[in-house]
């Protein structure tokens, strides 16, 4: 008996490995996705390894304000207080990416929980949870997050939570539709007939199979969370003691007509990062979603 079990496990493992391999092949056959991945790795290297090579404190005033890029030894110039923009881009990138990831995690956690329960139980539970989701969906997201930050003060934690709390609805809807589909599958019925409990079915049986579109969605969330943080910083609603790309834009914004580069550089960095994340997300989507493989 146990022998048979082991054999079955082996078979599943082989299947998993082969599907992973297949997926990887799919992903790498998509040139745009590969370009995105290379770009993303470059950005990560710049942001996390850069500070080892370039050790200037991003808050230190090192030279005359608004020194143009490539002058006086400042590759990206200096900002309105004479702080090194290159350092600010590295330190700010760490924060922007961290906020992006953390906020995406928050929104995925909320979204998956709501969507999973709604999709699994259906009926009144679904009705209530989905109306709740729609309530959040119709709120103007930027305005809502501004209110949260204004109420609870500007710190990294509140900004992250604010972004997460306003952007989980898409994840909830995707999760719900996947659950609606998968809960009717035979293997779910089989598990249920084996008297598996609801939580086991939701998190161990259905969720793993619903993951691919959620992963794609979460990946895109990182990009939009970075944009969100930039928007909040631009409006002066982020923690002024933490350098982020949005912060660099926000604090140099009044001088945009005189020294546009101080705003353009972090803006371009955000653009590249979000583009890279989107390309990778798109590639993942193609690789993970078997229906589209024939495209």
């Amino acid at each position: 008996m146990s022998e048979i079990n082991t054999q079955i496990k082996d078979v599943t493992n082989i299947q998993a490995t082969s599907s992973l391999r297949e997926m990887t092949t799919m992903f790498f056959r998509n040139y745009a996705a590969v370009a995105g991945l290379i770009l993303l790795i470059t950005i990560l290297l710049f942001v996390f390894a850069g500070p080892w090579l370039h050790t200037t404190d991003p808050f230190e005033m090192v030279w005359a304000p608004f020194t143009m890029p490539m002058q006086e030894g400042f590759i990206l110039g200096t900002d309105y207080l004479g702080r090194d923009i290159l350092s600010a881009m590295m330190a700010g990138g760490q924060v922007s990416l961290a906020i992006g990831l953390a906020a995406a995690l928050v929104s995925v956690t909320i979204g998956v929980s709501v969507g999973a329960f709604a999709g699994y139980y259906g009926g009144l539970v679904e009705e209530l949870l989905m109306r709740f989701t729609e309530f959040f969906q119709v709120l103007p997201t930027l305005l809502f997050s501004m209110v949260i930050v204004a109420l609870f003060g500007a710190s990294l934690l509140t900004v992250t939570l604010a972004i997460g709390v306003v952007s989980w609805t898409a994840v909830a809807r995707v999760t719900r539709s996947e659950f609606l589909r998968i809960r009717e599958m035979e293997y779910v019925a089989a598990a249920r007939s084996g008297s598996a409990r609801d939580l086991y079915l939701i998190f161990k049986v259905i969720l793993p199979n619903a993951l691919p579109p959620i992963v794609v969605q979460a990946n895109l969330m990182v990009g939009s969370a970075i944009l969100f943080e930039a928007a909040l910083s631009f409006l002066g609603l982020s923690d002024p003691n933490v350098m982020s790309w949005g912060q660099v834009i926000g604090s140099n914004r009044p001088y945009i007509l005189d020294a546009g580069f101080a705003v353009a550089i972090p803006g371009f960095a955000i653009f590249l990062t979000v583009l890279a994340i989107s390309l990778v997300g798109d590639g993942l989507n193609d690789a993970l979603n078997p229906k589209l493989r024939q495209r």
Partner: protein
Amino acid sequence: MKRILKTVATSVATAALLATPTMAEEPKKGGTLTMAIQQTPRHLNPAVQSGTATGQPGTQLFASLLRYDEGWNPQPFLAETWEVSSDGLSVTINLVKGATFHDGAPITSEDVAFSIDTVKANHPFKSMFAPVETVETPDANTAILKLSKPHPALLLAMSSQLLSIIPKHVYGDGQDPKSHPANSEGVVGSGPFKLVEFKRGEHVILERYENYFMEGLPYLDRIVMRILPDESTRAIALESGELQMSGFESNPRNIVRLKKNGALRVSSEGYAAIGPVNWLAFNTKGEKTSDPKVRQAIAYAVDREFINKALNLGTAPTALTGIHPGSPFYDATVEAYDLDIDKANALLDEAGYAKGSDGMRFALSVDYGWPAMKPYAEYMKPQLKKIGIDVAVRSSADFPTWAKRISTWDFDMTMDNVFNWGDPVIGVHRTYSSDNIKEGVIWSNTQQYSNARVDELMEMAGATNDSNKRKELYAEFQQIVANELPLYPIFASPYHTVSSTSVGNAPDSVWGTSSPLDRVYLK
């Protein structure tokens, strides 16, 4: 030397003014002036509301007893003549004859007495008329103010938006003057222009009052005051000619840019009485900031030159004391705290705060209340790190949040901008006087500073009309507060009036655009 130059400049200016009618073109009558104000006024009655949002339209609607010229000299307005008794305890005012309110009723001494009572009871600046005990009205054209002590700020407090003459037959109907319907609609004023329309968030439209008591004035037919909170919008509208005038412009980048425009006149004249001073305030009861040595060290570490050059682009005059540099009482000989990092470090060592292994001594926070103050607060962080103070910049979601933090003394340091309002008695004493430490009141003595000698000096200077004596007293006062440093003054806000070159007689008096624009004309 500076003062002599100033006198020469003033006399040259006066000569030029006198010569104007014969040399330059005659002021023309007619036309509509479109100007900007920066926020919607709560209402239009300056008798019960401070602030320049109300003051700019309010001084067109309501005349005051006196007006002031560029050289701080009182000029007749509704008061044809005025006389201060030799003991300073009584002021006799003779009203101009034939002056009427916008509904045709004559302006009498009864209205003057009523206006002074209303302002005294309702205006936030209590010190303006506090010593006025009674106002006697022997006849319709004479008002006699009886004072409990000589009150040097009295004449200034009778000018511009500080004393609007309001009609007793309208506001004396028993309703609360602060919420009187005639504050915003159907205003019955006494000034050169009457109200056509006040639309919140959009505009205030004013029209010439034909029976205005000053012969031949006002020149303009109409003034449209558009409410434009965004500084870039105003700058672009000024450049395009859509706006012909805007006062209180303070963004250095915009000022520098507009100055290059040949079709615009950009003037910093007109803010001496408003007297805005920007400073870094300390909580003198704070754990670290209660030590004067710590405050002095911070002052030595802050580079005023850098702030004025790099952040203000040279548009703002340096301010060394809480009294505006344009005031006759300003003392420029006080300790200036020019940049000296070594001295700052030595002071902190002396105060017992040795540098830790990471080079830091202790942490402080710095607040700012509105976006224009943010760059200065942000500057403190890297700059004070040089002397081992780890500064956290604390942002407030909105102005009330900041005002609450500061007025309940929940702060270490904050950037602030406070107005002198003409005489130190009105706008400066409130910042330093120990009996004005009032929880919950912003722009009171939020530093919680208290010094018996300073209190005494202010009291003496506030009770004599002898301006030489006052100058001496304020000089000693400024020396003391510059040494004890409850706040570190940095600069006078770079307020500028921008007007089209087609605007004649742009308002350059000490009250700027917050004074009657009856002599302004369009070329």
